[in-house]
């Protein structure tokens, strides 16, 4: 199993969610995060005091997938979250050792 983690631009969340349900993903977790990569921040000004804000708001989505679905999921995310401009984000794929469904105790493939 794999854990797919993607950092995307916040306004792309809906597009990515739709794309994921089209490849059969039934559950994801979303967190609001901030970060920076190559995309530059911006300046804010308060009564003459200028601040450079490096961090940009992003959204992190995480989902556990079975191995043979991983590529399709990564591909779906990449296409849906892409704008062609700097700051689109990244996708990380981790190996996942175990998954347990809390309600029933099902493990691994049965829990996904």
């Amino acid at each position, binding site marked *: 199993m794999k854990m797919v983690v993607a950092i995307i631009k916040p306004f792309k969340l809906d597009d990515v969610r739709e794309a994921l349900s089209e490849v059969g993903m039934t559950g994801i977790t979303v967190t609001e995060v901030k970060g920076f990569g190559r995309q530059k921040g911006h300046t*804010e*000004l*308060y*009564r*003459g*005091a200028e*601040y*450079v*804000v490096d961090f940009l708001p992003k959204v992190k989505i995480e989902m556990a997938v079975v191995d043979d679905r991983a590529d399709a999921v990564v591909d779906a995310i990449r296409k849906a979250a892409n704008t062609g401009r700097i700051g689109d984000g990244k996708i990380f794929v981790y190996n996942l050792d175990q998954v347990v469904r809390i309600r029933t105790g099902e493990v691994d493939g049965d829990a996904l």
Partner: protein
Amino acid sequence: MKKWLYGSIALLAANAARAQSETPTLSAGDTAWMLVATVLVLLMTIPGLSLFYAGLVRTKNVLSVLMQCFAITAVVSVIWVLYGYSLTFSTTGMEQGVINLASFVGNFDRAMLSGLTRDGLVLSIPESVFVTFQMTFAIITVALIVGAIAERMRFAALLVFAILWVTIVYFPMAHMVWSGNGGLLWDLGVIDFAGGTVVHINAGIAALVAALVLGKRKGYPNTAMPPHNLTYTVIGASLLWVGWFGFNAGSAVAANGSAGMAMLVTQVATAAAAVGWMAIEWIIHKKPSVLGLASGAVAGLVAITPASGSCGPGGALVIGFAAGVICYFAATKLKRALRYDDSLDVFGVHAVGGIVGAILTGVFADASLGGIGLAEGRSIAGQVWIQIEGVLFTVAYSGILTFIILKLVGLVLPLRVTPDEENEGLDLVLHDERGYNL
């Protein structure tokens, strides 16, 4: 106006039993207005100023600012009743042109509001209304200082400072300017209708001194400390604008033409100042900001305060616009150049705005410029010089005494939180509370 007012208090206090044709009678209209004006000025502090400041600090300190303003409201109200009204407005021993102790401060004859009755009048309103109205001025003057020491002063030290400051600095200043013949600055001829010197320059200078004595916030100016919620600040500024009509028009102590004109010039000056700050910021920074617009409005409100009883709409336009532009520079360039951490620009807006307004009051009081007219035989230059003297006195009095009071308090109580406490935030450290449990 004010001259009749205080003459009347003295008259009443001295010989209430004597019936005279000049004995004031109750005016329901005046009383109704002054009741409302009192409420409006209280609104300026809670929550006007409170929200204005709260939005400008960081999330972890939002409650501390609200706490300070609210507590000051409560504490100063009590002090006012105990002896504040007495020290400010008792007039025994005051004589025009004579400089004695009574020229500087009143006495304790009216402590615990002794002599206050339900039917006693000050001019055409119940004395009780006058007492409460003036109380709200004392409250906001002290609360203003909070802005300069925000995010680092200990609450206990602030309360002790507030009590000492209102007693030693505010009550005498108000007495000298407003208690009538015999008052030091009254006799000098200083025109200060609603408190440009007594409230704004006074608080603004005290704020600067406090900011310097307490020192900069940890990380200032290199760490970003942007306002956590400018929506509060705009709400606060709006409440200040609306409430200020009580402050200025209420200083007429009557529902009459003086109040009407005070309201008009207040609106005009505030609007001109907001436009002025917005314009200069737009030019210099290429974009106008909502904080600038709101700050500009406050600068205009401050500047028109001393002039609201004497200038006309044309004068108000100039006073407002000048304050908007000048205070922009004071709160941005000057502050950065002089490197002091007046967190919320109390000096830049209230002291500088108050000084601009106090001086221009002397100019635009002249009848030829739409004003009410200067004193017999006085020229504009003459009045401006008197205004400058009033300003200089206020700056010296407030500055020196504020410094001494802070140092004294600092001997007994820690003024400032520790660096670790400052990092954590005053809300948790001093009050065991969080502003937001989201």
